[in-house]
């Protein structure tokens, strides 16, 4: 199984000239009347275009993405994997609980493999007993209906002893498993005391607002649908919801925790190896529950610090005329009613903060990988890509769209 979403690491396509952006630009440089035709052409064979096509394109993010699995596997895991080659092939991925990349997910996966081994053995035993029970007296099948015989005393006694042993055995196994489960639970919780960094995640229908807190107020900043964290550093994640219940779940790092309006929950995540992981809302939250994902990028400390500094900066000023025009359109159109671009007058907090939108791995809460072409598709027809989402179609001419694209794509 290959994760097309996760681009192979030193992707030649991902560097230098961005092919998707080129594609998008090429199409969008058409005069207004043809923009419509172009868009229609993208839709190809009646499928929803932008998303389908976009996903077949390589990821156009700036990040070096190491391949997922394997290296740091614990011995228990290797052993278990050997036991279960069938499952193994499917285990890996950027959104898999069986491909742990963090301390907690590792412990949980270990616990799960242990449960699997014990329970599979029990299942096998039951099946064997069932087979024997069903077929040990087959030869007498031609007997007429009705009671065959009355149970014999010694058999009853033997079976009763078996029942007692069975019940005691069940209780013992279940008790043992409860013990293991409890121990892992304690171990996972203990991590919370070592958290060095705090992130506040607020779930909204249907995206994630992420705030990096800092004791120095002007060193806090906001982003959306992406979390970056330094490798090996436990991060406290404060979870809130603005509307309905959502659930924060990055399977490669940890189990889920709900975000509940009126309550504040907390979880701790830690990534033990570099990589990009995918998280997804796990509590049904309405129309676009299916497309409410976020990217979690684990990076070395220095890279993380550099990223953090870059995020603290206000948006880069537009560098050419086209972008300047784009900024003007952005600030005078409906965009400004919902979005913030720090350093400009756009300061609404209804939708995601776009200050560094072009530096994010994905668009529309993980619906599309980021590329200029995808951004164009998303702005042009958000309700086709993500029906019911809060992003409306904004009345822009194709030319205005071009300019806005140029501007937004410059917000690295």
């Amino acid at each position, binding site marked *: 199984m290959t994760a097309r979403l996760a681009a192979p690491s030193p992707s030649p396509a991902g560097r230098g000239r961005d092919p998707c952006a080129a594609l998008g630009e090429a199409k969008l440089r058409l005069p207004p009347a043809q923009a419509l035709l172009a868009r229609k052409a993208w839709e190809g064979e009646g499928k929803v275009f932008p998303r389908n096509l976009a996903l077949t394109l390589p990821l156009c993010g700036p990040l070096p993405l190491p391949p997922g699995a394997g290296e740091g596997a614990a011995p228990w895991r290797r052993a278990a994997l050997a036991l279960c080659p069938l499952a193994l092939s499917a285990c890996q991925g950027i959104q898999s609980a069986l491909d742990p990349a963090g301390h907690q997910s590792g412990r949980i996966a270990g616990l799960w493999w242990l449960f699997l081994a014990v329970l599979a053995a029990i299942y096998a035993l039951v099946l064997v007993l069932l087979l024997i029970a069903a077929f040990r007296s087959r030869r007498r099948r031609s007997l007429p209906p009705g009671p065959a015989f009355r149970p014999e005393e010694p058999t009853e006694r033997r079976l009763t002893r078996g029942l007692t042993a069975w019940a005691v055995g069940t209780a013992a196994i279940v008790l043992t498993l409860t013990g293991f489960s409890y121990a892992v639970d304690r171990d996972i919780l203990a991590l919370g005391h070592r958290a060095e960094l705090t992130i506040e995640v607020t779930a909204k229908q249907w995206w994630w607002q992420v705030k990096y807190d800092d004791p120095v107020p002007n060193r806090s900043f906001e982003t959306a649908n992406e979390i970056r964290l330094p490798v090996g550093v436990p991060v406290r994640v404060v979870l809130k919801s603005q509307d309905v219940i959502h659930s924060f779940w990055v399977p490669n790092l940890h189990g889920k925790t*709900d975000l509940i309006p009126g309550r504040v929950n907390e979880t701790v995540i830690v990534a033990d190896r570099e990589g990009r992981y995918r998280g*997804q809302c796990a509590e049904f939250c309405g129309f676009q529950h299916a497309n409410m994902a976020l990217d979690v990028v684990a990076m070395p400390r220095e890279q993380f610090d550099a990223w953090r500094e870059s995020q603290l900066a206000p948006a880069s000023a537009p560098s050419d005329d086209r972008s300047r025009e784009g900024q003007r359109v952005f600030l005078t159109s409906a965009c400004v009613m919902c979005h913030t671009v720090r350093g400009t007058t756009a300061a609404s907090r209804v939708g995601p903060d776009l200050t560094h939108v072009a530096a994010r791995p994905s668009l529309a809460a993980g*619906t599309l990988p980021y590329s200029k072409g995808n951004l164009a598709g998303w702005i042009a027809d958000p309700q086709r890509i993500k029906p019911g989402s809060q992003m409306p179609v904004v009345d822009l001419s194709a030319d205005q769209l071009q300019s806005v694209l140029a501007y937004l794509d410059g917000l690295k």
Partner: protein
Amino acid sequence: MSPRDASPFIRRDGPALEEVETYARLERTWATPPGLWGWLSSVDHKQVGRRYIVTAFVFFLLAGLLALAMRMQLAGPEQTLLTPDRYNQIFTMHGTTMMFLFAVPVMEAFAIYLVPLMVGTRAIAFPRLNAFSYWVYLAGGVMLWVAFILNVGPDVGWFSYVPLAGPQFSPGKRTDFWAQMITFTEVAALAVAVEIIVTVFKQRAPGMSLNRIPLFVWGQLVTSFMVVFAMPAVMVSSSMLIMDRLIGTHFFNPAEGGDALLWQHLFWFFGHPEVYIIFLPATGFVSSILPTFARRPIFGYTALVLALVATGFLGFGLWVHHMFVTGLPHLGNSFYTAASMAIAVPSGIQIFCWLATLWDGRPRFATPLLFVIGFIVIFVLGGLSGIMLASVPIDSQVHDTYFVVAHFHYVLIGGAVFPLFGAVYYWFPKFTGRMLSERAGAWNFGLFFVGFNLAFFPMHILGLIGMPRRVYSYPAGLGWDDLNLLATAGATILAAGVLVFLGNVWHSLKYGLVADDNPWGAATLEWATTSPPPSFNFVHIPVVTGSNPLWEEPDGLPVVGGLRVDQRELLLTSVVDAEPEVREPSPEPSIWPLLSATAVTILFIGSIFTPWAVVWGSIPLAVGLIGWFWPKSAPDTPEPVID
């Protein structure tokens, strides 16, 4: 019946009355009047039970079609067969219909039909309430489906979590219809539960002391008690929900002191026992079918009864395991882990007893037994994955993923639908007087078994590799594509199995072999009467001398006489030892249950649109209830005491 001097002509069954005449007189007394009016006013538990069964199966098919629609949408990534809005309605309707309109009612339906026969009485307790419950259930189900067809189908999941289901985020009337459907079905379920409890406690045949009650009846008894204690929780919570939505209360509004988790506590306090409400009757099917086809008495009767009761109690202590990821204190969660795992012990005991029965028996592989074997294979797997879900850390990963979807389908289809199909094959001759085809039965089982496993086993893996539940679409490239396609293929095979079943039923109703009284050579009382049973069930009330009466008395059961044949009369016995105590009259057919149910329907549906419907709607309801209970004839003649 009029004046006092008629008393010498009172007729009772007994040696003094010819068998043929007894039969004729009982038939005249108990038969449902012919025609539409008679059909509408029937209070015969067998007719009501049959209607319940047929209606529940119709809902099963409808919800199954919805499942197929979902599987088609998910067969590949990013399909656009269904819009998210439609998909959300469909999965909500699927879950709601399966849980509230199929699983619980169909189990009750079997109880309504079989429990009076199995305990050896002429009618269910409170037969008019029974008729009323069916009409209310029917009205609730039809209302929900009409709403769905009108695009007012609920779209917030069968669990309707607030605030998504609350007034702000679920505009319009969709969720209101859901909440009122709950009220309808709960009224029906609670009524049936009371009937079953009273029937089992008071109407057992003489000699059927507690330790001789068939296990199916035990299962239904424990289930009925669970209904009594669990269903009020969902009534309370759905009422709170609809009040929040319609009259502005604040139960679930955190800004005004309410709390979203209150809903989850109340809902799962009902929702978890609900699983056992579905599963325990199914264990009753298994415990009925197994001894018949293993052809030896069930092993471990006492252990099985204790396991049922233990499951009933433990079932109320586990609801929090649906809320492990809501941020509740971890220490409390661990308690619920222990409680959830503890339920494996009674379940394990049941499995062992069934295996032992089969082991020591001389099994005959008829279709009902095939379904029971399929049940064991599938249900045990579902139970074991349930042990994984009971662990807080593992649950935090697989909660609300396809792993859970796989788990509960293994438990509910494996644990309830397989035994149910077995039960249909087993009791079909009793219900209709005809046998189902064994050959088609084997095909039915094979397609069902293969299709089921193909459809649902891959979902375990899907959940573990990250696929959440309730998504209308998923991106390509996460490794979910092939497994989803496989699941869809399995679902179509499963559907083919259902088609074979329908064909088998249709064919057998017309051309099936005519069944005799006891075609399988079973041991319980329902096989002591004709197939199908007469309106009065038994010509004479049988006397029970053991746990397997028909096996222990091969020459025919002893009976008691002295019950009137010219008036509907039941024999009441004592709760523990089933000693005869009272001969009690049983109600005649009546149209009032239907009228009252209509009044209830108007009240419930009206209240979705205006709270005043509760006030004005209560007037016809009161009229209906008074009409129902008002005595219709002059008082019965006081009977002379006979020594």
